[in-house]
């Protein structure tokens, strides 16, 4: 139902009372503006968190071995536990459903030499699947493959910074480098979102290194990623079960806390998600607080407007305005102002976020932005609040005897 005459009345009233309109519009626009900016900054903080913790796969578990600290089954304490190839098979055998990828690892410091350049790096002997554990991204060439392992090839994938150190501006791909006296061919380079430390590793096929240095079944440590379908609590439970199973396999006392070491990223995840939750709650509180301030503002203004117009409403009633027409006139006016002002606030807010978004990155805020739906929801909340706030005084004004309204000064 579109009543042109009624809208004319409303536009005239808005037009002829610019200060009043501006005042109420400003309150709404300001509330929505603050809401948008605060929400946007909150989202920006969250984005930063997400990015900072993206260095390694969030779904990984690392396992290593130490000396026992408790005697068990007739064995003395102080016994060195050694992880072996059979442990990989054991884990895959027992926890096949929960393990996504798994890789053993042997780490050692090596001196790398290429022509005149030389430097010390950590050499990691791993499976091809280790790439997922580090979230490493191939820049050129390729990472290790199963074929490299089967043939025990003397090849390496080097980090971006290793290449920079040894080869300068040139590409290291296909070149031979000398690691601790043995020559390896560079088959690929990689970068890592985790940053510079993670880009100074050299990766070689696990089998090659195991054969070259000692020719045993020994493993330094084990990294694995677990089934992404596990939730945080399930993943933590899986880590604990895995630890206990390995203790059992190596005849370690169940109460021995140090012989088998296990770091589960899920526990870190849990902390991060707790932090995100707290952050979300804070943002929510600020948002709700801003909205409440806006609601109180618009309510006050509505009460004031109706008060100011009491006499006019009395005249209208004397001339034949029904209470319903009085109420709907005031409400439509307030809804119109709120909707337009809310939209203006939204536009300014998103504009400001776009403008300052880039420069906020050094303050731990990345790409601050808001979900348009959230802001429209906030505007609708304010419209409803404004309507309720306007309805009560409007109803009272419509009920007041015309004669009392006329005598009002």
């Amino acid at each position, binding site marked *: 139902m579109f009543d042109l*005459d009624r809208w004319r009345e409303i536009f*005239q009233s808005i037009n002829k009372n610019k200060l009043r309109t501006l005042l109420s519009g400003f309150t709404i626009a300001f509330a929505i503006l603050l809401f948008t900016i605060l929400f946007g900054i909150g989202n920006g903080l969250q984005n930063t968190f997400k990015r900072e913790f993206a260095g390694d796969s969030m779904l990984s578990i690392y396992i290593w071995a130490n000396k026992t600290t408790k005697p068990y089954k007739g064995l003395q304490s102080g016994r060195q536990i050694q992880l072996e190839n059979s442990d990989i098979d054991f884990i895959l055998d027992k926890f096949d459903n929960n393990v996504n990828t798994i890789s053993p690892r042997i780490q050692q410091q090596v001196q790398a030499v290429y022509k005149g350049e030389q430097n010390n790096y950590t050499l990691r002997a791993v499976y091809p699947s280790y790439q997922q554990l580090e979230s490493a991204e191939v820049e050129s060439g390729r990472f290790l493959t199963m074929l490299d392992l089967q043939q025990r090839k003397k090849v390496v994938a080097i980090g971006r910074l290793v290449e920079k150190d040894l080869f300068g501006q040139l590409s290291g791909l296909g070149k031979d480098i000398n690691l601790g006296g043995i020559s390896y061919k560079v088959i690929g380079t990689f970068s890592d979102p985790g940053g510079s430390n993670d880009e100074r590793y050299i990766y070689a096929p696990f089998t090659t290194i195991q054969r070259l240095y000692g020719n045993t079944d020994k493993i330094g440590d084990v990294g694995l990623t677990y089934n992404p379908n596990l939730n945080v609590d399930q993943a933590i439970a899986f880590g604990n079960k895995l630890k206990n199973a390995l203790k059992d396999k190596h005849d370690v006392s169940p109460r021995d806390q140090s012989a088998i070491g296990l770091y589960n990223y899920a526990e870190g995840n849990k902390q991060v998600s707790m932090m995100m939750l707290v952050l979300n709650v804070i943002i929510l509180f600020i948002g709700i607080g801003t909205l409440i301030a806006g609601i109180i503002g618009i309510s006050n203004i509505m009460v004031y407007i109706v008060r100011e117009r009491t006499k006019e409403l009395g005249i209208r009633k004397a001339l034949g305005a029904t209470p319903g027409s009085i109420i709907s006139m005031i409400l439509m006016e307030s809804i119109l102002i709120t909707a337009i002002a809310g939209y203006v606030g939204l536009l300014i807010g998103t504009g400001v976020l776009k403008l300052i978004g880039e420069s906020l990155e050094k303050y731990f805020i990345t790409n601050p932005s808001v979900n348009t739906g959230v802001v429209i929801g906030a505007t609708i909340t304010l419209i409803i609040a404004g309507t309720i706030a306007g309805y009560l005084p409007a109803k009272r004004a419509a009920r007041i005897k015309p004669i009392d309204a006329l005598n009002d000064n």
Partner: protein
Amino acid sequence: MIEIKNLHKSYPMGKESLHVLKGLNLKIEEGEFVSIMGSSGSGKSTLLNIVGLLDVHDEGEYILDGELIENLNEKKAAVLRNKFLGFVFQSFNLINYKTALENVSMPLYYAGVGRKERQKIAMEYLEKVELGAWANHLPSELSGGQKQRVAIARALVTKPKVVLADEPTGALDSTTTDSVMDLLKDINNEGMTVFVITHEEEVAEQTKRIVRLKDGVIISDEKVNQKVKA
């Protein structure tokens, strides 16, 4: 046109109640020009408010144009006011952000008359009160007498049965008082029932019937021999 039987009205004043109208009986026929005289506190404004459906009576009967007024809800009262009654107030009560023309056409808006038609009729009435040239002026740009003439045009625009005027000249000087009274007389001569409340003897004398109120009762009710003013 207006018939009042044993009308009572009191207002609560703290714990006590103030008995303002104490059983009024009054009958006004169509086409009469009646003034209600009385000092302040005599109950004359209360009477006009009840007759004008701006307030409700406690006891007795009020019949407007053959219709018994009782249990009026706000909406029905608004419709009746719009249809049967035109108001002229002491303080004009124009809407200050609307032009003279818009003020005059307002009752037609609430009567549901279309915009074009509204403006046409309102203009006719403005011209009738000789303010056609001022149609697009705001009340603040008009003199007191002009404002009251706009208010009279507004009261007439719906062709009501009765025009109710509450101290219509109370805020005007003697010259403009005369012009406003002349206007009311013209209206009456055209057959409109006019009901004026005043405390000025001079104003009352220009009507055709004077009803005097004192302390909530009618003390006299007499026809006036119209004198032509020198």
